[in-house]
C-alpha cells in the first residue's frame, strides 16, 4: 500500500496490544542462551572450519611480498585466501575501502588474508605464520592538520552540506550577547558486544551466510556484488544481532572472508573478527571539530546561529554531518551551517547511532548553555524562548508535531530543576561538587519502504515473515504486537520470523526508521490478509470483524484457523511512503536532565541522576522504547566522560583497540535512569502513528553531562571526553 496522506482512524487505534507494556517475545530465548547469533548455527553448519582474519600491520602503503607457505603447511590449515588468490572481487555499494586488501593497504588492520583451519586454535596459529613485507607510505592521520584541506562534500541522503538564511554575519556582529567557541569530539567505536561474525556455506553456486547484520537486502546485494554473483544466489540470515549501532549496517570483512574461505576450503567456514581488530578493521564514528557562533538579544532570543563542522574520512567516504540538527532546532532568522570533509588515512568512518546529530549535539547543546549563561537566562527557559514550530530556514515548513517545550518543562518539574544553583561550583555534598545540566534531544523521524508476509495457519497461528532485523531494538515484539492487533489474535498466537533474505524486503534497522517502517509494512500485509479472509468468507472487507481469533461478518463467526484451512492463508504487501515530506518536518524530541558529582580535589566525575522526557509519537511498546532511550543515555555518558578512539598520529591507527583500553560505561558508571514519554501520536508519518526512538536518546545527553559538570565546577571543557586531566587543566 502507498501511504500518501495523513492517516485517519484505523485499527491500530484500538491499542489492545499495541502500546501495551509487553515483555520481549524472544526474551526467554535470550535469557536462557537459546537465541541463535551468527556464529552459533550448529544444526545447519555442524562441522564448519574456522577462519581467522589477518589484518595489515601498516596504515598505508603496499604489500611488497606475502609468503603464505608457512601458514599453508601449518597444522590443520585447509586454505589461505588472499587478494592474490581470491579471484576477481568487486566492492559493495556501501563499502568505501576494500574488505580484502592487497597489494594496496588503505588502513591499519585492513584484512589481507583469511586462514581456514580445522579448529579455531589452528586457524589462529596459522595466521601468525604468514610472512608479509610492506612498503609504508606517509599518510594523513591528524584531523587538526587535515582540516585546512577539507572540502565541501556532496549531498548525502538528500542533505546539502551547507545551508544559510538571513544575514548571519550582520546579525552576529550586532548581537548584544554572543559566543564563539570551538568543540572537539573524538572518534567513537560502536563496540557492540557481539563481534562481527559470519558462517558461510556454499551449495554449488549458491551461497548462504548466517551473519550479524542490520540491513539484509542491502547486504545481500553488496555481498553478491563483491563476489560478482547474482543476488538471487545469495541468502543472508541474521535473526539475532548482538548489537549494531550502525556498525553492522553494511557487510564487513567477516562475511566476505567466510564466503571466500568456504569456497576455498570446500566446507562451511565461520569467521569472527577478534575484538582487538574491530576498532581498526571496521568502521567508527569520525571525529569532528565544530565551531559554533551564537548571537542573542537582551530578550534571550537567538538572532544569529552559525555551526560549522570539519570531519575526515577515507577517500570516497561520507562526512560526519554534525550541523544538520542546527538548521531547524532553534529559532533565529539569521543562520548558516556548513560541513567540510578532509581526506584521512585512518580506518573508514561511517554511521554510528545518530550519525551527525550525536556529535553535533555534543557541541551545540553546550553552546546553548554558554549563551544562556551570557544572557543571564536559565538554560531551560532559554530553550523554551527559542522554540520554533516552523523550519527557521524555510518558515513555510512546519513540524508535524513538536512538544519540546513540554518535554523541557515536564522534565524540569520532575527533576527538581528549580533547586539548581545557576552559579557554578556553589553546591557541595561532602567531597563532591554537585551540578545539574540540561540539553535538548532532537532527531529526525525518517521512514523507509518496508514489506512483510503474514500467514494464518490451520492451527490459527499467525506467522509474520520479513527481513527486518532486531538488533536489540525490540522489533520482534512490536511486529508481533502489530500483527496481533491487526489480526485479532492474542500475541502468544503470533510467530515473528526476522532477518532472512528469503522474506520480503523491509526497512531494516538504522536511522531510527526501523520500528515505524517495519510495523507499517506488517500493517499493510495484515490489511491485505484481512481482505483475503473477507474474500474467502464471501463478505465485504469493511464488514469483517476479527477478534479473539474469530472472523465475524454478519451472522458468520469462523475461527481463523478454519478460514485458513489446511493450506493456510497468506498475504504479502509493503508500505510505500509517498507523503509530501516537504510540507512537514518530522522529528522526535526530548529533554535530558543530568546530575553529576565532581570530586572537589581529584576531579573524578560520577553521574548521580538522569532523566529523559521524550516525545516520539505513539509508543508501540513502552518498556522497549524506554530501554532504547536509557541505553542511548548510557552511550552518551560514555561519549561525555570516557570514550575516545585515540589516534597515533605517527603510525596512523587507533591505539586503544580493545575493550580494556577503549572504555565504555560499566554498571558502576550508570545510576538509576528515568525515562518519560509524552502521550502523542503522529498520523502524518505512517499508519502506525509512531516515530522512532532508537537514536533520539543519544542526542544531547553528552552535552547535558558536560553542562552539569560545568554547573558543578565552573569548568567548561569543550574537548570530549571530559576526563580528569582536562578538568585539571581547565
Amino acid at each position: 500500500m502507498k501511504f500518501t496522506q495523513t492517516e485517519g482512524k484505523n485499527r491500530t487505534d484500538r491499542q489492545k496490544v499495541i502500546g501495551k507494556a509487553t515483555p520481549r517475545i524472544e526474551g526467554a530465548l535470550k535469557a536462557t542462551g537459546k537465541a541463535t547469533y551468527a556464529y552459533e548455527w550448529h544444526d545447519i553448519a555442524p562441522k564448519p572450519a574456522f577462519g581467522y582474519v589477518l589484518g595489515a600491520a601498516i596504515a598505508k602503503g603496499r604489500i611488497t611480498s606475502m609468503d603464505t607457505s608457512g601458514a599453508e603447511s601449518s597444522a590443520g590449515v585447509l586454505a589461505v585466501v588472499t587478494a592474490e588468490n581470491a579471484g576477481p572481487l568487486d566492492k559493495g555499494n556501501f563499502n568505501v575501502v576494500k574488505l580484502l586488501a592487497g597489494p594496496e593497504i588503505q588502513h591499519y588492520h585492513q584484512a589481507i588474508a583469511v586462514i581456514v583451519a580445522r579448529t579455531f586454535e589452528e586457524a589462529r596459529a596459522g595466521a601468525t605464520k604468514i610472512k608479509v613485507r610492506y612498503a609504508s607510505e606517509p599518510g594523513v592521520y591528524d584531523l587538526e592538520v587535515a582540516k585546512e584541506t577539507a572540502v565541501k562534500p556532496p549531498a548525502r541522503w538528500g542533505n546539502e552540506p551547507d545551508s544559510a538564511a538571513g544575514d548571519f554575519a550582520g546579525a552576529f556582529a550586532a548581537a548584544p550577547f554572543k559566543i564563539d567557541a570551538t568543540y572537539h569530539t573524538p572518534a567513537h567505536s560502536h563496540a557492540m558486544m557481539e563481534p562481527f561474525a559470519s558462517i558461510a556455506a556454499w551449495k554449488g553456486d549458491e551461497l548462504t551466510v548466517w551473519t550479524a547484520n542490520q540491513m539484509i537486502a542491502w547486504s545481500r546485494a553488496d555481498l553478491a556484488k563483491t563476489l560478482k554473483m547474482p543476488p538471487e544466489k545469495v541468502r543472508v540470515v541474521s535473526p539475532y544481532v548482538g548489537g549494531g549501532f550502525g556498525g553492522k549496517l553494511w557487510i564487513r570483512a567477516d562475511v566476505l572472508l567466510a564466503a571466500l574461505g568456504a569456497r576455498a576450503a570446500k566446507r562451511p567456514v565461520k569467521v569472527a573478527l577478534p575484538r582487538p581488530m574491530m576498532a581498526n578493521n571496521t568502521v567508527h564514528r569520525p571525529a569532528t571539530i565544530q565551531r559554533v557562533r551564537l548571537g542573542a538579544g537582551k530578550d534571550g532570543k537567538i538572532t544569529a546561529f552559525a555551526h560549522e563542522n570539519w570531519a575526515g574520512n577515507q577517500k570516497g567516504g561520507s562526512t560526519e554531518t554534525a550541523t544538520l540538527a542546527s538548521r531547524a532546532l532553534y529559532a533565529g532568522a539569521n543562520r548558516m551551517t556548513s560541513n567540510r570533509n578532509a581526506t584521512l588515512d585512518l580506518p573508514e568512518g561511517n554511521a554510528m547511532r545518530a550519525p551527525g546529530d550525536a556529535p553535533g549535539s555534543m557541541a551545540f547543546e553546550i553552546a546553548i548553555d554558554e549563551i544562556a549563561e551570557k544572557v543571564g537566562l536559565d538554560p531551560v527557559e532559554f530553550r523554551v524562548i527559542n522554540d520554533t514550530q516552523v523550519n527557521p530556514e524555510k518558515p513555510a515548513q512546519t513540524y508535524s508535531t513538536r512538544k519540546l517545550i513540554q518535554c523541557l518543562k515536564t522534565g524540569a518539574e520532575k527533576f527538581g530543576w528549580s533547586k539548581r544553583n545557576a552559579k557554578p561550583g556553589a553546591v557541595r555534598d561532602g567531597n563532591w561538587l554537585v551540578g545539574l545540566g540540561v540539553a535538548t534531544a532532537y532527531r529526525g523521524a525518517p521512514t523507509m519502504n518496508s514489506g512483510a508476509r503474514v500467514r494464518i495457519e490451520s492451527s490459527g497461528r499467525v506467522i509474520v515473515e520479513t527481513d527486518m532485523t532486531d538488533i536489540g531494538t525490540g522489533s520482534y515484539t512490536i511486529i508481533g504486537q502489530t500483527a496481533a492487533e491487526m489480526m485479532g489474535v492474542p500475541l502468544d498466537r503470533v510467530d515473528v520470523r526476522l532477518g532472512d533474505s528469503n522474506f520480503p524486503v523491509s526497512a531494516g534497522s538504522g536511522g531510527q526508521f526501523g520500528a515505524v517502517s517495519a510495523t507499517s509494512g506488517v500493517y499493510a500485509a495484515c490489511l491485505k490478509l484481512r481482505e483475503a479472509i473477507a474474500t474467502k468468507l464471501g463478505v465485504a472487507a469493511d464488514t469483517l470483524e476479527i477478534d479473539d481469533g474469530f472472523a465475524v461478518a454478519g451472522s458468520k463467526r469462523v475461527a481463523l484457523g478454519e478460514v485458513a484451512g489446511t493450506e493456510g492463508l497468506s498475504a504479502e504487501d509493503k508500505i510505500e511512503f509517498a507523503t509530501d515530506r516537504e510540507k512537514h518536518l518530522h522529528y522526535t524530541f526530548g529533554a535530558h536532565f543530568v546530575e553529576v558529582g565532581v570530586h572537589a580535589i581529584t576531579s573524578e566525575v560520577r553521574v548521580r541522576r538522569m532523566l529523559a522526557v521524550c516525545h516520539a509519537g505513539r509508543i508501540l511498546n513502552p518498556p522497549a522504547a524506554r530501554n532504547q532511550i536509557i541505553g542511548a543515555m548510557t552511550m552518551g555518558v560514555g561519549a561525555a566522560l570516557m570514550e575516545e578512539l585515540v589516534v597515533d598520529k605517527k603510525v596512523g591507527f587507533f591505539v586503544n583497540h580493545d575493550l580494556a583500553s577503549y572504555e565504555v560505561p560499566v554498571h558502576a558508571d550508570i545510576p538509576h535512569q528515568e525515562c518519560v514519554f509524552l502521550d502523542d501520536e503522529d498520523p502524518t508519518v505512517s499508519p502506525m502513528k509512531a516515530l522512532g526512538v532508537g537514536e533520539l536518546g543519544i542526542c544531547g545527553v553528552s552535552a547535558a553531562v558536560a553542562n552539569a559538570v560545568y554547573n558543578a565546577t565552573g569548568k567548561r571543557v569543550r574537548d570530549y571526553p571530559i576526563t580528569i586531566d582536562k578538568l585539571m587543566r581547565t
Partner: protein
Amino acid sequence: MQGPGDFEVSRRDVLKLGAAATAVPLVAKGQAGSPAEAPVSTQLSLNVNGKVHALKLDTRTSLLDALRDHLQLTGSKKGCDHGQCGACTVLVNGRRINSCLSLAVMHAGDKITTIEGLGTPNKMHAMQAAFVKHDGFQCGYCTPGQICSAVGMLSEVKANVPSHATTDLTAPCALTNPELRERMSGNICRCGAYSNIAEAIADAAGVPAAGRSA
C-alpha cells in the same frame, strides 16, 4: 642523562626500528630453540550442567571455546576473548569466572554451570525470569554472562565477600544499589540496559531497587 636533543635522535631511531619491525611479523618456524609446532591434544572429561562429556581437545582450547565449539553450548558468549567484557561468564564450582581466560584442560573434575544449566525457556531460573520481566537486555548478547554473573555475585554477597563499594570491611555485606552496580561491573552491556539489569537483579535477590536516590 640524555639531553632533549639526544632524546629526539633516539626517538627517530625508535621510529625507524619500529617500521622495520612491522615489516617482518613474527615467524615461528625455524626460530632458534623453537620447539615443535604440532598441536597437542588431550583427553578430558568436563562436567557441564550435571552432564559429563568426554572430549579430545587441543590443549589451547579455552573453556569458552570448548563449551561453544565442542559442546555446542553457545549460550556462553564470546565478546572479547580477553576478559574485558564478561559475556563468557560461567559458574565453576559455584564461582563466576571468565571462561575465555581459562583452559578447558584445567577444568577436569570441576562442576561447570552455564546459562543453559540455569534454566530453559519453559522453566527459567528466577534470575532469568527477572531479566525478562524487567527488560534487562536489548540485543541479548551480554545477557547470559550478566545472568551467570548475577547468580555468582549473590553467592559472594551471601558469603560476605566485600567489594570496592563496601563502606565497612568488617560489617556484614548487604546488596545496596551501589554494591550491586560495582559487583556487576565486570559485565559490559553496550546496549546500556544497566538500569533495568539492576532492577532485575534486585528483584531476584529480594532487595529494593534503586529508585531515584542521589
